[in-house]
Every structure is written in structure tokens, then in C-alpha cells.
């Protein structure tokens, strides 16, 4: 088949919700193949606009995957098609990754309207932001009304991934996330909702109190027992109510635009890295300063100037 025909067929099947085509489209983008950009440009914009993306982040073991599975359960009860992207780190040494989030989501394995994709960070944060962003949009175009994206960690970089989403959620649990203390003053400035999971475990109350009175009393903090689906229906209601609020206030669009801008920057860095390496390694540029920082300025100004003249 010709590439153009192939692309058309893939897009047509993807928009019908065909599992295989959705999955293949994500791979073709993630692997940065030639078809990638064309796939992304062929997605139904209206579906992208109506979809809601929710970032779920927190330390390993806090119950993110279990919580995700519970949310999916409630969403399916409402008849909504759901996408899940579960991101785990790649080994920086071998590039390999062990992706095990699916284990907690197997209740939905045979449900065609629950699209699950495990994704490794592939060593570059910009890379995963780009790939996860693309996967979100492909799932949305395939008819997913809500897309949940699970990422490990509580550091700034992981927050970056979560901030690709329209609404962000931080999951903590007793014994998991005590180190969050350092940023407790500002948690609710960084995320929209804070979930204290494993509320059935001792120490849950204390964790809440440790976050400070202001945080603990906020109506943006919820307690759950994800493994029993306790409090998870309420959590979903809160997420959806928050969405309605954002959409009424134009803030939804602003958030989207901010995420897109961020992804654009990530992609730019991703794309320029290879070209820069090529330029510098092959000494296309002569007379570079011995100091790397100064040399970098020279390289950048050269690249930018050239591409500008090239444009004209």
C-alpha cells in the first residue's frame, strides 16, 4: 500500500475506535517515524476539544494505578470511553523499562472502550512529554471522553508531565509521600486536587495534619480507599465538576494553550538536539570558543540566524 493510502486507512480506523490502529498510531508517533506528524495533523479537532485529560502523579506505591482503575470503573458505569496512559521511567543505563501498571487495571482488559497504553520515559523528559501528549490526543480522537495519565514521582520534572493535563491530581498515602513535606506549603498551588489514599491505614490522619491546617481543611483535598473504591466516586464527581467550572471560565482554553506551548518547546528541544549534535561534532561551525557556555551561545545564534535567512 502507498503511504498516503495507509495513512488514510489508519486515520479512518483510529477514529472508529479500532484498538489496533489507535495503538499503532501511538507507536508511529512515539518512534518518531515519518508518518507521525501526518497522523497528528489528521486528528478530529472537535474530539480533542471535548476530551478531558487528567494527570495523576505521586510516589510509587501510593495507589495511583489502583485509583486509576477505580475511576475507570465509575466512568464506564456512565458509559464513557476512557483512555489511560501509564508512564514509568526507562533505565538510563540500558534504555529498557519494566512497565507494570497494567497489573492493577486488568479488570478492564476485555473492555474495548478502555484504552490502556504503558509508556517508558525513554530517557528524555521532553521526549515523553511529547509522546504522552500525542498519545492523549490520539486516544481523544478515537472517542475517549476522558484520558487519565499516570506518572511516578513528586519532583518538579514529573509535575511537568502531569501539567500536560487539563486537571492535575496528586496522590499520597501514609508512608508514601512523607518527603512531600518539603513542598507542603505549596502543594495546592501546583496541583488541583490532593488525594490522600489508603485512608484505611493508620497514619492517614497524621499525613493530612502534617500537610498543615490550611491544606488539610481545603475542599480540594479528598480521602480515598482506592482498593475498595471508597471515596472514588466522589473524587470523580469532583473532577467533573471542576471541569465544568474551568470550561465556563475560559480557563480551560488557557490551560490547554499553556500545555500546547510547553509541548511545543519540548518538541523543539527534542528536534534540535540531534541537529546540534551533528553541527558541533562535525565541526561545521569553525572558531568556536573553548568555553562550552560561550560556544553554545555562538552555536545558537548561528543556527537561529541561518534558519531565519533560510526562511526568507
Amino acid at each position: 500500500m502507498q503511504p498516503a493510502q495507509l495513512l488514510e486507512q489508519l486515520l479512518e480506523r483510529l477514529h472508529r475506535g479500532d484498538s489496533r490502529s489507535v495503538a499503532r498510531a501511538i507507536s508511529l508517533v512515539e518512534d518518531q517515524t515519518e508518518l507521525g506528524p501526518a497522523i497528528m495533523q489528521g486528528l478530529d479537532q472537535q474530539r480533542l476539544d471535548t476530551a478531558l485529560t487528567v494527570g495523576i502523579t505521586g510516589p510509587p506505591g501510593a495507589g495511583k494505578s489502583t485509583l486509576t482503575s477505580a475511576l475507570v470503573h465509575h466512568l464506564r458505569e456512565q458509559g464513557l470511553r476512557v483512555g489511560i496512559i501509564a508512564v514509568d521511567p526507562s533505565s538510563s543505563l540500558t534504555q529498557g523499562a519494566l512497565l507494570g501498571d497494567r497489573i492493577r487495571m486488568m479488570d478492564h482488559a476485555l473492555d474495548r472502550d478502555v484504552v490502556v497504553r504503558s509508556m517508558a520515559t525513554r530517557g528524555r523528559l521532553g521526549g515523553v512529554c511529547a509522546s504522552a501528549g500525542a498519545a492523549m490526543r490520539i486516544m481523544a480522537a478515537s472517542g475517549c471522553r476522558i484520558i487519565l495519565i499516570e506518572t511516578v514521582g513528586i519532583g518538579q520534572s514529573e509535575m511537568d508531565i502531569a501539567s500536560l493535563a487539563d486537571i492535575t491530581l496528586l496522590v499520597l498515602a501514609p508512608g508514601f509521600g512523607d518527603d512531600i513535606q518539603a513542598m507542603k506549603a505549596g502543594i495546592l498551588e501546583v496541583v488541583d486536587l490532593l488525594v490522600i489514599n489508603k485512608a484505611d491505614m493508620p497514619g492517614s490522619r497524621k499525613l493530612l495534619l502534617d500537610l498543615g491546617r490550611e491544606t488539610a481543611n481545603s475542599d480540594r483535598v479528598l480521602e480515598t480507599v482506592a482498593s475498595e473504591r471508597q471515596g472514588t466516586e466522589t473524587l470523580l464527581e469532583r473532577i467533573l465538576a471542576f471541569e465544568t467550572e474551568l470550561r465556563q471560565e475560559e480557563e480551560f482554553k488557557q490551560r490547554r494553550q499553556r500545555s500546547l506551548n510547553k509541548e511545543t518547546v519540548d518538541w523543539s528541544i527534542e528536534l534540535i538536539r540531534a541537529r546540534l549534535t551533528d553541527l558541533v561534532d562535525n565541526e561545521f561551525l569553525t572558531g568556536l570558543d573553548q568555553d562550552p557556555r560561550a560556544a553554545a551561545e555562538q552555536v545558537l545564534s548561528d543556527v537561529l540566524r541561518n534558519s531565519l535567512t533560510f526562511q526568507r
Partner: protein
Amino acid sequence: MELYRILIGKPGLDGHDRGAKFIARALRDAGFEVIYTGIRRTPDEIAASAVQEDVAAVGLSSMSGAHARLFPAVLEALDKAGAKDIPVLGGGIIPAEDIPRLKKAGISSVFTPGTPVDTIINAFREACCQHHQQRC
């Protein structure tokens, strides 16, 4: 180097996943992206997951003698899911006399407790490489 995604599944009712986890880790350390689905999966669940994850190969583990029925059942499930092209490799406690039958059914490689890890890794790499070549 190309990155290969593979799925390791454990069909059947036995809960011994030490072998499956060992292979999953070895493959990760060899540079694969390994999706692990956990124990007691049905062939249909494994096939559906393999499709959604767009893996280049599926690895199955069985310690309880369920391989004779369940390995071919996974091939059937993949066929039903429109993913006949995804190669399936299998390992575990498998009597030598069963191996030809499994291969005839379409399992591309069969490993036993004596198989060196490198052999297993190479078999996966080979299978993934072939699969990637035919994908668009």
C-alpha cells in the same frame, strides 16, 4: 538502536511468577520495554493487552503444565483480535516431547529451565526485529 516493546504474560491458574518476572527483568536489562500483565491472565486478556500496547512480541510463561492448552489458546486469541502477526514465545516447565507440538501450533520459540538467558534474549530480539520490519 531500535527500541522493542514486548509483553510478558502468565496464562493459567498457577501463581508462580518467579520465572516470568526473572525473564521480564532480564529483558528490561537487555534494553527492551517490557509490559508485565501479572499472573492468572486469560488468553483473551493477553491478546487484548498485546494489541493495545502494540508490542512486537509476546512471551508466555507456564509452570503448571498448562502450556499445552494455553499457549495455542493465546495464538488463537491473537488471531481473533486481528493480531496474528505478533510472534509468541513461551517458556517454563515444558517436557521435551511437547516442544515440537507447540512449535507446530505456531509458538516461535520454546524455552525450558536449562535455556541460557542470552539465548532467550536473542530469540526475542530476532522476533521483534522481524516484526518491526513488516510493520508500517
